């Protein structure tokens, strides 16, 4: 053991004190949040300023099919972050090829393509992209995806109607229009 202790002495002594510890996941979230650079179309919302592992994101797409709507997502970051991605759900029932009726979101970096180097910012930008460019080849809502490729005009009308709280194919959606 003497050898290691002598290695230690060559280092500048750092006065680390032993108090309540911040977890590595919390640290990384603090880092990610303090370096967020979101466009004006996205806003975060924190139910509690003290708990940075649970928050919401609102996306207001400024172009595309979903312009005029406001979409809310919940973010839950667990202690395994960034080994595991944040858990993200859409809080409203929306008509979208990549979001199912329970709010599950099909975004590759939230599951199979997640890497610890990706940041919370990357996830948020990815979510916004889903509204600018819905991807019919990765469907979670098969009807919506089918409609988008089969009849783009009809799809556009369905989106407008659903966003106002209307029903599409017998399913009622939440009104997401900006008041």
């Amino acid at each position, binding site marked *: 053991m003497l050898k290691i202790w002598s290695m230690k002495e060559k280092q500048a002594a750092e006065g680390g004190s032993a108090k*309540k510890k911040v977890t590595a996941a919390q640290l990384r979230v603090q880092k990610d949040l303090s370096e967020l650079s979101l466009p004006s179309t996205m806003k975060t919302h924190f139910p509690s300023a003290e708990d*940075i592992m649970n928050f919401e994101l609102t996306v207001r797409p400024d172009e595309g099919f979903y312009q005029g709507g406001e979409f809310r997502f919940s973010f839950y970051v667990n202690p395994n972050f960034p080994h595991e991605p944040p858990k993200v759900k859409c809080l409203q029932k929306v008509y979208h090829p990549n979001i199912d009726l329970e709010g599950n979101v*099909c975004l590759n970096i939230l599951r199979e393509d997640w890497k610890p180097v990706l940041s919370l910012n990357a996830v948020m930008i990815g979510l916004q992209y889903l509204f600018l460019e819905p991807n019919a080849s990765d469907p979670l809502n098969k009807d919506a995806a089918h409609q988008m490729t089969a009849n783009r005009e009809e799809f556009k009308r369905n989106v407008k109607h659903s966003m106002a709280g209307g029903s599409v194919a017998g399913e009622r959606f939440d009104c997401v229009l900006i008041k």
Partner: protein
Amino acid sequence: MHELHDQIWTSLPNLFSTMTAVRNPYSISPVLTTSGPFSDEEFAPSPDVITALADMSILVIGAGGLGCEILKNLALSGFKKIHVIDMDTIDISNLNRQFLFRPSDVGKPKSEVAAEFINRRVAGVHVTPHFGKIQDFDNDFYMQFTLVVCGLDSIEARRWINATLVGLVGDSPETLKPLIDGGTEGFKGQSRVILPTITSCYECSLDMLTPQTTFPMCTIANTPRLPEHCIEWASVLEWPKHFDRKADNDDVEDVTWIFEQARARAEQFGIEGVTYQLTQGVIKNIIPAIASTNAIIAASSCNEAFKVATTCVPFLNNYMMYSGNNSVYTYTFQHQKRPDCPVCGVQVLRLAVPKSTTLENLIERLKENPATKVKNPSLRTASKSLYMASPKELEEMTRGNLVKLVGELVGEEEVTVTDEALPFSLRLVVDVE
């Protein structure tokens, strides 16, 4: 079959008690009392080294597949004061490889049964069990050990102990506790020597971990091809539709529900291979444990523990990868410390401030400090956001704290500072005068 096992097991102690009479109990003495071509320059061979080894307190974390091997190896190589922590109780499925346990031990705490077994079998060794989570023990507990050997299967627990040991490092050399970390995943494994704050730490290598196998959400939802797709469909998509709570992966009823849903879906798509066992494996993300991999990794880890503790020969610097997938392959390399590691790459800054200092004053002092060079810092403690410069909404929520006194806001806690100018973050210890 079980009866046969019982018979063999009960006859073993007798076999061993006859063997101890012939074995040289000082088999480690040639290595420690003489020097050889591999001896470290600073190594002073002497019987005192054997005594020092016996007096050294060593902590083993985990008493599972790796832990059983580690405890046995340490007890047989001269360590006499061993502590072991484990939060689990013995399950019948553990018995094929966790050889310190017997069928009659099922349901009992692993740490206690393992300790009792070693204490009974290896004369002179005392293992002290701790039944609980590593997070339940405080810094004073960890400070009593010279060395820590980990045989865990949880990433979260490893990150926690790694950060704790890095955090313990203070001015005196004894606060530096080498961490020997063993890990296995099927036929693959690694062992490594971490000297907290000196070498690369567990967090430095987080991106080297094999990512969990996950499938695209839309494949699960629409085009399942594998039994795993059906199981994920049942647990990720179907479960939340029917229940308001999370599924308990250790509860037979919950797992059965998921299994039955998955089996029905598999039938619908003509997929074979959905079983209860696979269901449990997929939802718990279990990679089958291989007894031989555990034995190899534990042997390497304990060899390193012995070398670190005695300095008789140079120890591993600092990472050994083992793969038994296609043939037997090992690769040893020096994993580099990450300058921006959130755990060990963090500078510590001690600031003494007068009682009248507000949070705003403290931030000004940080900005003026040439050692930190921060521009727009965010400050938090483990439980509180003091001031978050971004995002805008958090800034608004925490702005009110700027006029408050640091002494009242921070209390005894340590402050974590993040800023674009910092490689990762800064640990700030504030002493209010």
